[in-house]
């Protein structure tokens, strides 16, 4: 039950894009048509669902103050949290590289359609942001961390697909010249974000 409420909250209330503006770079660059947006959204969700529990386990059994207690008594005062940033990004980058190689080997057609986005995911702020928020919120168990990753990913996917759909229709609108392209995309994002703010305060 707690997990479901967490998923719904992270999709709507704490939406990665509209509440925290994480993953904006690829959000703006790849939201030109719905199909590629969907592909990238799925890839981001997948990477979030895998790396978040991995980083959760690392955080709680290696990095946190006293987390190394299972190694023996002399390790109980050890605090490695200074390295959390390094470890998190290393896990994410190497996992993305791994996924890239596996997909390249087993499904060349999927690789061809996702190819360019995969390396982009390693530097997608939403992924590292997910891990850092996980560290800040101190989830009770690994299941909740996974649920959080899944919800954030779906929220990101929803946002980028919605944006792409609007931009496809925007082709036919008459936008002031200096605002064409980037400017109008920013304004739409802002309006969508204000819309999403109406979810704030919903408690499930």
């Amino acid at each position, binding site marked *: 039950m707690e997990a479901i409420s967490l998923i719904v909250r992270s999709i709507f209330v704490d939406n990665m894009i509209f509440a925290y*503006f994480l993953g904006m770079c690829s959000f703006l660059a790849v939201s030109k048509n719905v199909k590629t947006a969907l592909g990238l959204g799925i890839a981001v969700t997948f990477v979030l669902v895998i790396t978040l529990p991995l980083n959760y386990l690392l955080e709680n059994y290696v990095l946190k103050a006293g987390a190394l207690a299972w190694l023996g008594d002399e390790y109980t005062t050890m605090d490695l949290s200074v390295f959390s940033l390094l470890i998190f990004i290393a896990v994410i*980058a190497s996992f993305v590289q791994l996924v890239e190689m596996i997909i390249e080997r087993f499904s060349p057609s999927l690789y061809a359609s996702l190819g360019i986005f995969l390396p982009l995911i390693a*530097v997608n702020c939403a992924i590292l942001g997910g891990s*850092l928020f996980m560290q800040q919120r101190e989830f009770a168990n690994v299941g909740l961390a996974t649920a959080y990753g899944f919800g954030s990913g779906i929220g990101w996917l929803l946002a980028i697909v919605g944006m792409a759909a609007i931009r496809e229709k*925007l082709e036919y609108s008459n936008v002031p010249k200096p605002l064409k392209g980037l400017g109008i995309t920013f304004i739409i994002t802002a309006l969508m974000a204000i819309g999403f703010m109406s979810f704030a305060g919903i408690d499930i």
Partner: protein
Amino acid sequence: MALLSSKTKAVLLGPLNKNNPVIVQVLGICSALAVTSKLEPSLVMAIAVVLVTAFANVIISLLRKSIPNRIRIIVQLVVVAALVTIVSEVLKAFAYDVNKQLSVFVGLIVTNCILMGRLEAFALGNGPWPSFLDGIGNGLGYGWILVVVGFFRELLGSGTLMDIQVVPEAFYNAGYENNGLMMLAPMAILLVACIIWVHRSRNKELQEETN
């Protein structure tokens, strides 16, 4: 030899205007907008990004001949993450309050696309000194956007600058109200859109053809 030849000058000053990382190259918006509700965290963030970009550029530029191509992204991320860890520890020690306000966004400098973009596009192909200038230039180009957005959001949203009251009391007595909307995150993005509007009206060659 002059300290700055005309080429290195272009490398340093280009990103401030025609080649701005935020409003022209669309990089690094991720970690930027959430920290700009006040002027002070915007300034701190801007300084942090200038330092990290400059030194990451120098380090990668020195290593550029020895990094294997296939794992270069991981190497770059590790260098950047190490630098950001240093910045974050310094902030914790000397500016704890600001560090609290910036929360996870200091860590998110690691995935700031400006860094990866500059490392890939510039530092891998140029020597340490131009790379250093390129890092400073891009960091400043990013920084001035942050500071402008932070300035307007704090001035209109809470009537203060750097936590000092600037809107006189008489205004409030006459019925002036702070615009609470400016404190909300979406307004940051709307302000950036306004900056883009002004910037592209002045630089017509940057305007795009399609939506």
